[in-house]
């Protein structure tokens, strides 16, 4: 008799009493397992450690493990010069892993240990401001010892001090900042894109992209309806949702990092974009432009923070302080091409570009353009055009996410 027939024999047979008892036994074992799980209970997930100032060890441990986004630190042929410099200067063995591709994805991997008070394996993580706000709400970030961060205190630009998502910089200090706007190929589009709604012009249908990042896409949509994100109510977001859904057919997709792929290949002629990316792409294709929509673009910052339970907190502070040295910060920015939180960087890049070693710089031969780019180093005028994200509490975040999900899924 065949294998498969035997399989179904088991299911077809009339059940004898013995069989029934056995099955009942197994069933109750199963329920017992479930009851056990229920009894285990799930405590509230908010940790208290984030509120206290944990004492730092007297000596550095000699080891540091950092998680960052890809291409967010300077690169040499054998690794990052900044990391290597830090390692030799402080005698600390540092691992800089570019594992963060998405705030939520990364949070998903560290949530479980954090909620149970265990080390995540990371000493420093670099996350976008709204995720920092969320982790703060949950008490998942260590409080920083600002006495170990004199370079930060001395060199940070005022606009980054005491931000909306982390009052007093108690739990985080910025790594880099940028703007979400629109990138487009002026030749392929044939005109300048000025407003967010221009993306939905009929002649561009099927070749434009929006972001899968809810706060960016809703942010620009709300702005185009005259609403600044921090002031938006749920009704406003619903209106934005409707507007997006009605235009969804014209959109090719909702992208993450891979919109650059589409833009480079010409599959996308216009898309929501990040300032630094377009600067980089435009070096290969001078037709690419970045623009902040007339009604406003989103400004964001990625910030360094120490997850609760980190095993080498003093080493973490040392590195965080190290990158606020203007020379180090300039080296990083010359490679990364996103705004630096250190005030002196723009001037230093100008000086470097005019200096004798200009050709050896990582931004060469574009260093002069880099220093003057008003999206990488926003002027007052540019700043005014940008809007920060809204501070969402858990319930609001849920509602906004649910609304966005209907936009993104078909």
């Amino acid at each position, binding site marked *: 008799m*065949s*294998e*498969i*027939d035997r*399989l*179904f024999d088991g299911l077809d047979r009339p059940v004898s009493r013995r069989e029934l008892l056995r099955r009942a036994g197994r069933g109750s074992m199963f329920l017992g*397992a*479930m009851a056990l*799980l*229920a009894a285990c*209970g*799930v*405590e*509230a*997930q*908010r940790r208290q450690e984030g509120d206290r100032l944990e004492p730092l060890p007297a000596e550095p441990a000699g080891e540091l493990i950092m998680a960052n986004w890809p291409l967010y630190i300077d690169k040499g042929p054998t690794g990052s010069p900044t990391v290597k410099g830090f390692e030799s200067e402080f005698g600390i063995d540092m691992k800089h892993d570019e594992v963060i591709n*998405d705030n*939520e*994805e990364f*949070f*998903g991997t560290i*949530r479980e240990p954090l*909620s149970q008070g265990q080390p995540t394996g990371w000493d420093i993580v670099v996350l976008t401001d709204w995720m920092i706000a969320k982790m703060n*709400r*949950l008490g998942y970030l260590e409080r920083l010892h600002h006495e170990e961060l004199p370079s930060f205190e001395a060199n940070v630009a005022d606009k980054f001090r005491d931000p909306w998502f982390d009052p007093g910089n108690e739990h985080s200090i910025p790594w880099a900042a940028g703007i979400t706007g629109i990138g487009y190929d002026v030749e392929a589009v044939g005109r300048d894109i000025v407003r967010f709604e221009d993306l939905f012009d009929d002649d561009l249908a*099927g070749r434009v992209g929006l972001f899968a990042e*809810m706060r960016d896409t809703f942010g620009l949509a709300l702005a185009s309806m005259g609403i600044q994100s921090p002031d938006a109510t749920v009704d406003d977001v619903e209106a934005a949702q409707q507007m997006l859904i009605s235009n*969804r057919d014209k*959109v*090719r*997709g*909702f992208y993450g990092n*891979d919109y650059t*792929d589409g833009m480079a*290949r*010409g*599959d996308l002629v216009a898309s929501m974009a990040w300032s630094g990316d377009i600067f980089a792409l435009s070096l290969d294709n001078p037709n690419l432009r970045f623009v902040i929509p007339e009604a406003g673009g989103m400004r964001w910052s990625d910030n360094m923070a120490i997850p609760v339970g980190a095993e080498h907190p003093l080493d973490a502070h040392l590195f965080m302080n190290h990158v606020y040295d203007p020379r180090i910060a300039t080296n990083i920015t010359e490679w990364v091409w996103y705004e630096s939180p250190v005030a002196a960087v723009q001037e230093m890049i100008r000086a470097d570009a005019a200096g004798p070693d200009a050709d050896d710089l990582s931004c060469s031969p574009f260093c002069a353009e880099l220093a003057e780019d008003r999206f990488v180093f926003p002027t007052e005028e540019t700043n005014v055009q940008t809007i920060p994200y809204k501070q969402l509490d*858990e319930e609001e975040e*849920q509602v906004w*996410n*649910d609304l966005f*999900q209907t*936009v*993104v*899924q*078909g």
Partner: protein
Amino acid sequence: MAYLLLLPGGVWLLLFYVIPTISMLSVSLQEGSLEQGYRLTWNVGVYGEVLLRNDTQIIRSVLYGFVTTVVTLLIAYPLAYTIAFHGGRFKNALLFLVILPFFVSFIIRTIQWKFVLADQGVILGTLKDLGILGQGFHVLGENVAVLGGLIYNFLPFMALPLYVALEKMDKSLLDAADDLYSNRAVAFLRVTFPLSLPGVFAGSLLTFIPSVGDFINSEYLGSPSTTMIGNVIQQEFLQNNDYPEAAALSFLLMAAILIGVALYARVLGTEELTG
């Protein structure tokens, strides 16, 4: 004796699959949030909710899985057949070559497919230049692209079990069939194919089951209109942090797959599944 054989693997799966899955089941019945914590409230209603809300994606995923399985079967069968019967001493090497592309990360494979299928890329661009295709034509973002990705990625999963079943067949039987039936096609349908059914069954399972739950191909090669249940689960889990719903959807997915598999086995089982 059987229990002894089952023991090591069984214990491993019990520890590292069954227990996490039971805890997942428990999570699906919980309510709450990250900040307030979750409590087990036996909220069975969540299953109904997510089923109703995501019925389109569930149906779409099952459909994609079905098409993927059928097409990979059609593509892989002749391939496995040739390697098994005409491979000679190159058999193992050829088999290895079939799976070799999968040693380089799926990200690389998918990105390179995006390159191949780009609107103005090597294939489409050339065809457009020649005037065969209209300028607005695109493949990426459509069902075809996602299915193409699924089929490509699951081809070895179908080919390997097929090969395994075909290779063990007694060639003298096949020679006899050739002698008996005037038509080679009939000989194939009457003798070879039925004998290879265990391989067809195994390959179909290894293709259908994972492809229904796939999310990568839709994410990279698709668009909102190709959203699969895997994408929904991903979103519920990562973005909405709605673990009960994500878990409930996962169980619904598993149930749908199990039902499909049971039906499939029943259909095949009514024939003489020899071998």
